[in-house]
């Protein structure tokens, strides 16, 4: 057994996880601000960072908001993505090419670009969304400010994230659907199964590994998402009333130059993501043993 082939694994594991985690823990027990950054030496403060975070009502509000936000994002992404993939099999090739082109364009669109477009579309003075909604007689949306309330702001962020995440889900599920044996679907249909039954009892079990990976990746990505809320809400509008974990961590850790507190928040975030996805990870590892 050539052990030097494993060496990169151990080095990698140490580099991508061990060292940063060690520092994260060390940092979370220190006062480490701008002054300490220049001195290159933190001051040990025990559990003070954790204490200040846990006793901060902003943290709990942010956490609750982020959990709901993540659930909405992941749920909508998975349901809509799967629905589109299922319909994609049924329609004529013109529509399929049209939609696939759209999906690829969105997929290739950097989040920063997507944010620019959404900012422009929802601009209250000359945004095209307001214009179209008014023309369609949904109501008078001229001069409607979508960024006036926290809910409508975060709903926009959710729409943006779901819109950007759907292509990955559609393409993966669509590709997975081609792996479902036609005989199984046919057999179920001959036995009188309605489309919903076929989907629930034939398609889903076969695509389960794909759904597991997609869902767990989505949870991980959406729980810590930063770019979309940071840019769409905008630094000038970000405050305690619309924090999600990603922007909360950035503001507390970097913007206020309190790295020790940032580290403490990071560790709490890590624990929560681990809790959220432990179920999926166990499934994934078990998959591996069954094979």
């Amino acid at each position, binding site marked *: *057994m050539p052990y030097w*082939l494993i060496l*990169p694994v151990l*080095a*990698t*594991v140490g*580099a*991508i*996880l061990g060292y*940063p*985690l*060690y*520092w*994260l823990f060390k*940092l979370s027990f220190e006062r480490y601000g701008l002054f300490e950054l220049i001195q290159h030496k933190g001051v040990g403060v025990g559990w003070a960072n954790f204490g200040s975070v846990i006793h901060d009502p902003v943290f709990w509000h942010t956490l609750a908001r982020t959990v709901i936000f993540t659930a909405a994002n992941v749920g909508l992404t998975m349901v809509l993505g799967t629905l*589109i993939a299922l*319909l*994609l099999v049924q*329609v004529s090739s013109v*529509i399929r090419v049209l*939609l696939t*082109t759209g999906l*690829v*364009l*969105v997929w*290739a*669109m950097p989040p*920063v*670009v997507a*944010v*620019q*477009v*959404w900012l*422009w*579309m929802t601009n209250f003075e*000359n945004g095209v969304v307001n214009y179209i909604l008014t023309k369609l007689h949904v109501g008078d949306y001229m001069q409607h400010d979508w960024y006036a309330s926290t809910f409508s702001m975060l709903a926009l962020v959710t729409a943006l994230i779901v819109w950007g995440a*759907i*292509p990955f889900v559609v*393409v*993966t599920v669509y590709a*997975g659907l081609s792996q479902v044996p036609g005989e199984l679907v046919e057999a179920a249909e001959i036995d009188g199964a309605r489309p919903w039954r076929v989907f629930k009892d034939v398609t889903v079990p076969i*695509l389960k*590994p*794909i759904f597991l*990976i997609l869902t767990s990746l989505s949870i*991980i990505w959406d*729980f*810590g998402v930063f*770019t979309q809320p940071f*840019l769409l809400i905008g630094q000038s509008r970000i405050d305690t009333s619309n924090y999600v974990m990603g922007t909360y*961590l*950035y503001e507390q850790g*970097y913007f206020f130059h309190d*790295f020790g507190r940032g*580290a403490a928040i*990071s560790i709490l*975030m*890590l624990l929560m993501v681990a809790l959220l996805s432990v179920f999926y*990870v166990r499934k994934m590892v078990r*998959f591996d043993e069954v094979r």
Partner: protein
Amino acid sequence: MSTASVPVGAAALVRRRPPPAVRRQRFLVAVANHSLLIAAAIMFLAPFAFIVLTALMTNDQALSSHLWPHPFRWRNFSDVFHQAPLLRWTLNTMIYSVVATIGVVVSSVPVAYALARLRWRGRNLAFMVVLIALMLPPQVTVVPLYVMWSKLHPFGFHFIGTLWPLIIPNWLGDAFSIFLLRQFFLTIPEEYLDAARVDGCGELRILTTVVLRMAKPAIAAVALFSFLYTFNDFFLPLLYVGENPSHWVLSIGLSEFRSLRQVQWNLTMAATLLVMAPAIVLFFLAQRAFIEGVTLTGVKG
């Protein structure tokens, strides 16, 4: 089921036209399916159409409610180059994306191979660690890493404000790539590897000759993921080079572009198109390999 074995009567049964009620229902379902997907296609294509149209408008028009540019102003694209150091940003982005992507592939392949095909003590533990690393939001490890880079300062390495802190970690493996590659390597039949071993190949030769050749789609997928991720990356560049405009990458440049020249939507959208172009071209060229890689690693995983 081959058609040859179907009795003549059964074939006739299959061919028979379904009753009108069933046909009408099928027609309605098809109409519903098509309209749903056309709506979806509009949702995904419309923003892109808005970008293109606005990029061709004059500034006054971009602020009005007209949707069709009149006259077409192609000069916007060249104006962008005069108003912002777009070439500088592009160069920085390319350095970051290309060097980081090569690093991800070079460093992740051996790790994934060792996790998938070599038996050694602690392998499952190492895989668990990779999974945990996959779960970490990037912001989590970023605080200690930032402090670590700044600690190198007294030793003569002035890394903060340069692209190095963005590039170097990618040469130490990437959890997502390792995970995808491992899942793919597991699907390679053991017989191929055994045959190579019987022929006297060492593990490294097996990796470079047999495995690498069979894993091309997966490696292409990983390289593409990595390229797109770094190309689109906003958070890390903002952190490390945000205060040093000469090292800005496209994503930062673009988000600053609006504030740089008070809001000129037409130029912003023209810049947006220019930024998107490389990613789109790459995507259409490599879509096949991409999807193949995703499917193979996903379904069999």
